[in-house]
């Protein structure tokens, strides 16, 4: 600072940790977000007996240029980034999408008055990735 009086002003240690944290934990990056709905909101509770609430969750956020190990993204994701940057920008960058799901058990009333319990595949997003 003596040599170059125009340098950035000194920051306190706490600000410094905040500053570095943004690199360790980037903001707005691809991640899973909670979303919970109740079937009565959709007026579907007439025939959906259980569960009363359903949390499908969703994925949202930016995909970093170099994804790789953090998201378990396939190598193709990096190739797509390279295509976007170097070859053809009309090719979209990788998107933040669900990578894993968990099933949902639903108890419904059938039109003929019978009662159905069924386990449906892939109804709740549990993990996100970039691809």
């Amino acid at each position, binding site marked *: 600072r003596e040599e170059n009086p125009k340098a950035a002003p000194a920051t306190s240690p706490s600000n410094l940790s905040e500053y570095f944290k943004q690199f360790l934990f980037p903001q707005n990056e691809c991640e899973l977000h909670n979303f919970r709905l109740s079937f009565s909101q959709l007026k579907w509770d007439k025939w959906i007996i259980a*569960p009363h609430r359903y949390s499908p969750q969703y994925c949202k956020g930016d995909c970093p240029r170099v994804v790789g190990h953090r998201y378990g993204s396939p190598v193709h994701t990096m190739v797509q980034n390279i295509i976007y940057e170097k070859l053809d920008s009309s090719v979209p960058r990788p998107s933040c999408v669900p990578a894993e799901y968990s099933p949902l058990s639903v108890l419904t009333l059938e039109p003929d008055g019978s009662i159905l319990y069924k386990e449906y595949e892939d109804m709740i997003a549990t993990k996100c990735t970039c691809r």
Partner: protein
Amino acid sequence: PHSRARVTSDKSSGAVAAPEDITSELNPLLWLPKGVVSRGYGLLPPLLKVLSDRGPQSWESQVPRLQPDSRALRYMKRLYKMSATKEGIPKASRGHLYNTVRLFTPCSECQHHHRDPREGDVHSVDLLFNLDRVTTLEHLLKSVLLYSFDTSVPTSPSITCLCHLSVKEHDFSSQVCPSVSHSIAFSLHFEVGRRKWVEIDVTSFLQPLIATHRRNIHLAVNVTCLMGDPQHSPRLANPIHVALVPPSLLLYLNDTSEQAYHRWNSLRHRRKSPAWPRQSNSPHVEPTGDRGTENSQGKRASRRR
């Protein structure tokens, strides 16, 4: 939608020409490209498909819905609680094979109720179950006749019921009355206590019918209940008044369609990826999750595997 490859991206279409009978505000597909919808519901998760089919209008416009029997509803809610967490996720611990359970209440009945002190309290019921809702990809694992059971005045700690079950075949070509194709007789003995339900396993009895995707099953059920236990008191005595409601039919099914949850697949998937701790091999389990005993051979085989 797993098969993205088939989704045609049609930039010009912002909206989707939905088939006529889908109300726009209900159909969550509206933001899908046109090609997808026009190809029908193949891509929809069955829940959304079922729900899209049943908009509020379609609900009202159908034939008045048969309300389920309140006891049956209570039974299925209990089954749901046992099989899924509060968030609705199937419980892994249950280990049952089925991913679908359907409960049918008889849609027509002719109850003959006569009392003959010598024969006990005889219930004779003619039951017709309509199985239209069972799809070809839902394979039967177990079928049960479910009796709800309430004795207003428990007169004996144990009851023995003699059951006679027969399947009636309708020969619509000739106007003859339905004929009995095959029948079975068995006795049931149970402790009354706080029991509310009696499940009678009729899997082998109904297997031939359900395997051929019979849409209607016509059963004649004849139940005679007497007090006591034949082993302790050789002479069954004193008929009792058992309030037997006509049974519901419970089908435990394995749905092999793509949209249904295949728990063994997900378990296998977990075993492959090291991120999951290796699961101990579950012993032999019944389709409904009752744990059997694991035999040593099974253990050795699994260890070798």
